């Protein structure tokens, strides 16, 4: 499912809400979530999961083209931990 398919599904779920409002809402939800993580703020959605940041320690990398050493700074990367309801609902579909 893509973002546009998600918008279509929600538009079908709520025929009384204008499609443009559904579209703005989906984009805004994702924007809020990305902005929250960029500000190092966690996201907690009960039954879905939580998003937080994990630290990656500084390391010495290599330029794959030249083989030169490159010092890489530590950085934060987004991490998702699925919530109990989501875990239980996908578990069986092997």
């Amino acid at each position: 499912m893509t973002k546009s398919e998600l918008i279509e599904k929600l538009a079908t779920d709520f025929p009384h809400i204008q499609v443009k409002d559904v579209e703005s809402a989906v984009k805004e939800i994702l924007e809020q979530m990305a902005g929250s993580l960029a500000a190092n703020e966690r996201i907690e959605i009960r039954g879905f999961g939580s998003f937080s940041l994990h630290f990656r320690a500084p390391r010495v990398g290599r330029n794959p083209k030249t083989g030169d050493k490159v010092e890489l700074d530590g950085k934060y990367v987004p991490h998702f931990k699925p919530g109990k309801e989501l875990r239980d609902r996908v578990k069986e579909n092997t």
Partner: protein
Amino acid sequence: MALTKADLAERLFTKFGISKRDAKMIVEAFFEEIRLALETGDQVKLSGFGNFDLRVKNQRPGRNPKTGEDIPISARCVVTFRPGQKLKSRVEVGTAKK
């Protein structure tokens, strides 16, 4: 303070004037539609944010940490999230030391 569904719904009301009742329903359904897609084995791709993928895990040995008893962890399907390039760079820039 963590971002919650209530914060997201409040924002839809203040930014677009979507009624509080509709805003709450949209936010709830947003996450439910993602769960439904994953539950039916469908990957979810939200461009600019990231992808929710499904991975099949084989059965592996485990144990009850309380009793120390050996119990196999059954084969199962799990959700993994792969942040997109745009989200990763926003987080890197946003959290970089000034």
